[in-house]
Structure formats: structure tokens, C-alpha cells
């Protein structure tokens, strides 16, 4: 890529909208993603993340709005754009009857890469995905985490400039997630631009330089993870749990002690600057919770603040 283009956004959306019949899944959103950036879409199920990803991957046609990818119009240059993209869809789309290696070799055909080159890259990518030992196993026999890694390996066959990952770690155990995150860091340090959707706030905090928070088809906040937290939440959070038979926690006592508080079904969250200080004050006021936890604010708190709901219910 010539240097001049690197200042232009890689993806630019203005008023991007997607309707399904009468239902509006994406409601005229704006965003810009720069080259080399790792950009997140954080939001609960049904927020419109997948619908947005399908438009950004030049597959689904927007109902309205402007979208440019690599400075090209997906309506006219869909195949040219997709040749430079890697896509990891939310649901697996692997050939279950074929072996792990064959999945890669076959997929390379769609990009019209020379056979020899596909083979070379497949070997490298199997190593990258830690699947070399499983190369000749039937894909159907892989674990969920292995299938995700194979899907990521497959999405890299054409050496994409932009990699789009739709909930890459949903449904994986913590170990499998951390392995995947580590691979994504490597891609990022190799200069690949990443777009990641997730409903895990820790994933967004770990992986994204910048992110938007989506809810009901709208973008409700945008910024770097730390920035969003300092903008929309306090430094610390004090989480209090009460015995199950206490149906209404002593709100009137607690509320003066915090900047803000949230009552969730299983706990009360007090948003404060110094959690330990507040906990002492809570005890001094004669309130005795079953357990108390002081933690730093997270994106989950930002989401709760902005929408009144939790990300994962």
C-alpha cells in the first residue's frame, strides 16, 4: 500500500442502516476505522453487531447510508473488497466432512491462489493455529476452540489487510479464549487491522484500541476502553451481596455513600472513588452484607450506565 492512503480511514460508515422488513436492526450508525487499528463493537445479543459486520464484509447490502471499505464502494466493488478481507463469522462455516488441512486447501481456491502457495500458507497457518498435529483429522471431530482457530487460520489464507471477527470467543472455555487472544495480538502486531464484535467486556478491554458500544441498533458511546470508563463510570466499584431473604437492600443508607448505585437481582453496585473507604463507611452505618468486593470499573459498568442493562444476561 502506498503511504498516502494510510491516512484515509480503512472503513468509513455514515448513516449505515439495515432493515429486515419493518424491523430496523442497524439504525443509521457512523464510524471510522483506521489502518492498523483494533476496533471493537461491544453490545448484547440483538444489538445489531452481526448485521453491521455483514455489511462491512461487503456481503449484505445496506438498506441506507454510505459505506466505503479500502476507499471502495461495496455495491460496485464487492469481489475486489472481499479479496482483501478475512472474515470469521459468528457461526462456524467449516466443511465438517473434510480434514483440517483440506479445509484450508479447498478454501484457497476461492481466492484463486496458486496451489503451491496455498499449501505453503496452509502449513504456516496450521502452525499458527496450533493445529499441525490435527491436520489430517476430520474437522467434525475438533473441539469448539479448535474450530474457531481453524476458522481464523482459514480467514488468513489470502493475507487480508482487514480481519473481521464476529464473536470469536463466544462459547469457549477461558483457556481456549486466552489462546485465541494471544493469536489475535500477534496478528495486530503484524499490522493487520482488526474488527472484533463481542459481548464480553473483558475481551473488548483486552483487544480493542477503540470501540463503540451498540444497543438496539444504535451506537451509544465511542472511545478507547479506559477513556469510556473514566467518562462514564467512577474509578472503583463496591459490590455488595445480601442474604437471599433480604429482598430490599438498605438503599436509603447506601445511596448517600456513593456517586451512583445500581440494584441488580443478586447484588448492589456502589460507584465510588475509593471502594475500601466506602466499605468502611458501609460497616460503620451498621449494614452487614454477606460479601463485599472492591474492583475497578469495567466496560460492563459503562454499558449498565448507558443502557440500564447488563451485557450478558
Amino acid at each position: 500500500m502506498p503511504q498516502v492512503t494510510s491516512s484515509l480511514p480503512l472503513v468509513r460508515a455514515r448513516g449505515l442502516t439495515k432493515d429486515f422488513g419493518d424491523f430496523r436492526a442497524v439504525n443509521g450508525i457512523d464510524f471510522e476505522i483506521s489502518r492498523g487499528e483494533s476496533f471493537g463493537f461491544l453490545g448484547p445479543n440483538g444489538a445489531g453487531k452481526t448485521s453491521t459486520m455483514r455489511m462491512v464484509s461487503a456481503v449484505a447490502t445496506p438498506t441506507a447510508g454510505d459505506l466505503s471499505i479500502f476507499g471502495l464502494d461495496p455495491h460496485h466493488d464487492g469481489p475486489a473488497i472481499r479479496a482483501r478481507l478475512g472474515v470469521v463469522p459468528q457461526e462456524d462455516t467449516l466443511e465438517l466432512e473434510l480434514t483440517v488441512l483440506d479445509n484450508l486447501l479447498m478454501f484457497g481456491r476461492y481466492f484463486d491462489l496458486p496451489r503451491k502457495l496455498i499449501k505453503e500458507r496452509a502449513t504456516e497457518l496450521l502452525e499458527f493455529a496450533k493445529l499441525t498435529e490435527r491436520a489430517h483429522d476430520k474437522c467434525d471431530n475438533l473441539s469448539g476452540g479448535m474450530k474457531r482457530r481453524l476458522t481464523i487460520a482459514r480467514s488468513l489464507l489470502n493475507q487480508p489487510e482487514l480481519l473481521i471477527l464476529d464473536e470469536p470467543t463466544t462459547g469457549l472455555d477461558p483457556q481456549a479464549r486466552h489462546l485465541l487472544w494471544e493469536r489475535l495480538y500477534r496478528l495486530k502486531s503484524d499490522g493487520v487491522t482488526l474488527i472484533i464484535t463481542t459481548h464480553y467486556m473483558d475481551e473488548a478491554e483486552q483487544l480493542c484500541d477503540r470501540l463503540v458500544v451498540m444497543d438496539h441498533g444504535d451506537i451509544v458511546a465511542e472511545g478507547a476502553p479506559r477513556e469510556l470508563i473514566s467518562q462514564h463510570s467512577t474509578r472503583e466499584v463496591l459490590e455488595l451481596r445480601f442474604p437471599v431473604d433480604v429482598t430490599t437492600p438498605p438503599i436509603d443508607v447506601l445511596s448517600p455513600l456513593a456517586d451512583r448505585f445500581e440494584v441488580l437481582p443478586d447484588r448492589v453496585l456502589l460507584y465510588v472513588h475509593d471502594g475500601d473507604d466506602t466499605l468502611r463507611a458501609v460497616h460503620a452505618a451498621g449494614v452487614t452484607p454477606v460479601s463485599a468486593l472492591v474492583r475497578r470499573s469495567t466496560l460492563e459498568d459503562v454499558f449498565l450506565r448507558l443502557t440500564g442493562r447488563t451485557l450478558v444476561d
Partner: protein
Amino acid sequence: MSIVTVTSSVSTRHRPAWFRALTYEAAFYSKTWRASVISSFLFPILYLSAMGIGVGHLVNAHTGLVEGHTYLHFVAPGLLAITAMQLSVGECMWPILAAIKWVRTYHAAVATPLEPGDLVTGKVSWLGARLFVTTAVYAVIIACFGATSSWTAIFLPFIGALIAVAFAAPLIAFSSRVESDVTFTMLFRFVVVPMLLFSATFYPVSQYPVGLRWIVQLMPLYHGVALCRSAAFGTGSPGPLLAHVSVLVAMAIVGYVVARRNLRRRLVS
């Protein structure tokens, strides 16, 4: 080690996208053909033996020749037409819905430079090519049984390919809109099987009462069967032959256009 070298530019070849889909189908078949070899070759041969030799003895003993041929010779070209249709139709029902809905591999394909229409073209042309080869093998087999009596039998593989394409295209159009595979079971029971039985495959159209012959002629497969029989025996006059070919070509063209539209709607809406 760097997995993705952003600056590297790779000289890609420039084969059209539909052709890449075709080679994908061929490669997929080459890796999985063992599962389908029985239905491809063994069934037709079993059919031929059972119907031709078994039923043939009975028919020959009672009525003598059928349209001037022994029953085995009469039924063999029809079985070739059936084989071409059945294999093609089978590939365009469950496998299409699986690629759309269950295994979702078509969604992976349209995230590459391919368009939904390329998948249709790839599938249809692959089935044409595959059934060309399959029916060529079959034609050699029935020739060994003595069931071909004219040089025009060399057209049989072309007719087999035409039948495959003529059924594949409309079936893909149909399957692109199907939500559940129960629909395929119904289609098989109430459309495919009756068509197999009533397309003048197992006995000549002259066996039907005059008033019902037009129903037979409405069966798309009837035209394939008629063409195969003409090719095997070197019979038939230009007018009807042209009509048979036209029906199959029309099915292929209309089916192809609708299939491209339907699959696009299904995959990229």
C-alpha cells in the same frame, strides 16, 4: 515469524469466480466420492439387471418385443435418463440446504470474491460435467449388454449432461427457498418418484390410454427418456427431437436465472 505480510503482493491467477466454484465442487467430490459411488454406479447396474433381465424375461415371454426391442434393450436408455436425473436432483436438495443452513459453507464462500450466482454456475456446470462422465460409463455398460444399436449412442453422455443441468438448475432455485428438509421428502415422494415411474421409462407411452398420454408428455423426464432412447437406437425424427431438447434447455435456462436470484436473496439479504 510473521503470518500476514501486509505489504506482500501475490500474483493471483485470473480464473473467473464461477470456475473456482466448479473446481471446488470437483475437489470436494474427489475427496468424498467413496460415499456416493454406490448410488452412482452400483444402483443403475442393479436396476438394469433386475428390471432388464428379471422383468425382461417375463415381458418377453408374454408380449414379445417392446417397440421392436427386447425389454432389457428398451428399458436401458430410460434407466440412463433416470440415473442422470436422480443423481443431479439429489445433489441439489439436501446438500444445498446444508450449505445454506446447517453447515453454512455457502456463507463462507460469499465472504470471498465469489457471488451467490457463481455458486449456482459452479454447481450446475459441475453436475453437467460429472453426469457426462457417469452416463458415458453407463453408456459403455449398456452397449456391452447390447442395448445400443446405432452410432448415435455417442450422444448419450451429452444427453445425460443436459438432463442433469435441466433438473439441477430449477432444483437449486427451489432449494434456495426451502426452510426445512421435510419439504424434500415430500418433493421426492410426490414429484420425483411419480416422474420416474410415469415418464415412459418402464413401458412405452403407447401403453397409456390416448387421453392420458399428454400427462406423460408433461413430465420433464419424459423428454430426457425419449432422447436417450432415440440416441441408443438411432431412431426419431428431427421435429420431436428438437422439441425434447427445447424443453430441457428451457428448464435449464429458466431454472438457472431464478436460482441465481433466489440464492442471492437467501445469502446476502
